[in-house]
């Protein structure tokens, strides 16, 4: 036995990876860094603006303090509107997402064409951001909360449809076959065999999405789709930073409370 062979079998120094693996890992790391640096350099960025960024940020913060508390009265109504948009949007989603989920789940869809249609709607809905949907619905319904409700619904549809559809695909087939063997029709199998099994997932995702929607509905006003975003955008554009501070604190409160409510409800359901 030569020394080198012995060395390969029992190296003196422990290494996690073989030299080949190490080389591949370095190559990957180098490639990632290269892509990131290249992206950064290719962007049209004036780095000089970053130099006084901290001064500008400090300036903003000092202008925000003290917050203009009197302004709070004016934003109670918009805050409620924000919550209403999120809630009503989630209710609309709940109604549309159920049939769509059955369409997009492989084991409940009538045929492969309906499956592709269902999948396509889900992908399109999820790919487009709520704010972009809001642009579309503002063009349709005009500025106001109606556009916001539909924007929320349009984006949530893909989220809920996907999660519910995945739950439907993982349903216990024994129960479904038992119902089928009683001679039940397609609809009855879905209602009695499949639906009760996915009900907890449906409620869970609905509440979870509601809490995300509260966060999303705070910016709908930027494109005119109702809610607190309108006041936030106009206060920022009018440089009323003390009012901006009040709005931000209010948004923070609402989002934290809704996250808490959603967590408690989900824990009770599942």
């Amino acid at each position, binding site marked *: 036995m030569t020394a080198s062979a012995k060395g390969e079998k029992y190296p003196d120094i422990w290494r996690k990876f073989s030299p080949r693996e190490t080389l591949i890992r370095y190559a990957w790391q180098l490639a*990632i*860094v290269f*892509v*990131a640096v290249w*992206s*950064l350099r*290719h*962007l*049209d*960025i*004036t*780095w000089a*603006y*970053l130099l006084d*960024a901290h001064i*500008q940020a400090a300036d*903003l913060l000092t202008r925000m303090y003290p917050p203009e508390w009197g302004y709070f009265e004016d934003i109670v*109504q918009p805050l409620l*509107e924000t919550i*209403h*948009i999120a*809630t*009503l949007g989630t*209710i609309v989603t709940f109604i549309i997402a159920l049939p769509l989920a059955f369409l997009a789940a492989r084991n409940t869809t009538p045929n492969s064409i309906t499956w592709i249609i269902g999948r396509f709607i889900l*992908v*399109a809905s*999820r*790919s*487009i*951001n709520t*704010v*972009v949907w809001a*642009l*579309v619905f*503002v*063009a*349709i*319904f*005009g500025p*106001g*909360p*109606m556009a916001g409700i539909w924007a929320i619904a349009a984006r949530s549809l893909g989220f809920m449809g996907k999660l519910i559809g995945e739950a439907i695909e993982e349903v216990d087939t024994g129960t479904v076959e038992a119902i089928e063997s009683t001679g039940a029709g397609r609809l009855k199998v879905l209602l*009695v065999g499949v639906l*009760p099994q996915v*009900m907890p997932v449906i409620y869970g995702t609905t509440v979870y999405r509601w809490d995300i929607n509260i*966060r*999303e509905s*705070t*910016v709908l006003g*930027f*494109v005119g789709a*109702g809610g607190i975003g309108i006041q*936030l*955008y106009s206060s*920022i554009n009018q440089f009323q930073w003390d009012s901006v501070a009040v709005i*931000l604190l209010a*948004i*923070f409160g609402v*989002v*934290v409370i809704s996250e808490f409510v959603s967590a408690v409800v989900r824990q009770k359901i599942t």
Partner: protein
Amino acid sequence: MSYPTTWKRPGLIDNPVYRTGMWIAAGLYLVWSLGTLEMDWGRVSQGLPRAADMVSRMFPPDFSRWNLLVNGVIESVEMAVAATFIGMVLAIPLGLCAARNLMPTPVYAVARAIIVLSRTFHEVIIAIFFVKIVGFGPLAGLLTLIVASISFISKMIAEDIENMNMEQVEAVRATGASFPKLLIYAIQPQVLPRYLGVSIYRLDANIRHSTVVGIVGAGGIGMTLSATFKRYDYDFSLAILITIIALVFIGEIFSNWVRGRLR
């Protein structure tokens, strides 16, 4: 007790009083919320014909200004890639600080507070502040996505560290390893796969968000998109929307593929 002769499906709430109460409460909420929302019903009722008009103007999608489209998309993707990478790097220290089992309570509390604060506000709100601070353009969008990435990835790192196997940490600590060595030999091997998975997921999320920060002037395809809506240039809007859907779809496939390989 006599058994019922017909079977009824059990509901979510057994108590009939609570159940009907829930429905009544839901009904009252609908009346209240729809009643207080300030809706211009006259304008809303024009919705259907307007939508029909919009759809007819959208077709066929207009790809003739493709260089504007391609430039916007490239800028969005570059913002997403660069932000994910910088976010990945910066999330490590914050994630370590936010792990309860590694850090003293004050450090943990501060790190968690930073994460909660930056997660509460929507990306678009953060974007508008960066636009005010560094001006219009991709730099504001880049910074926004970096902030969003840091808070998301560091939260996941912290949770993963809190759930890791402490015996391995103690074993390494028993050899007299220093804190950096502890990080490299005991913690890093346990959390690395999830960290990479979360980062790839974040790349996917950043691509989605990079298409929207432009609406408040922070660069990317969103700027072009919102301009087309203002100019009723709907056939170009549809072209952009189709491109965004394709882009996000590709990003999702890529992300799933990488995460599948990491497992």
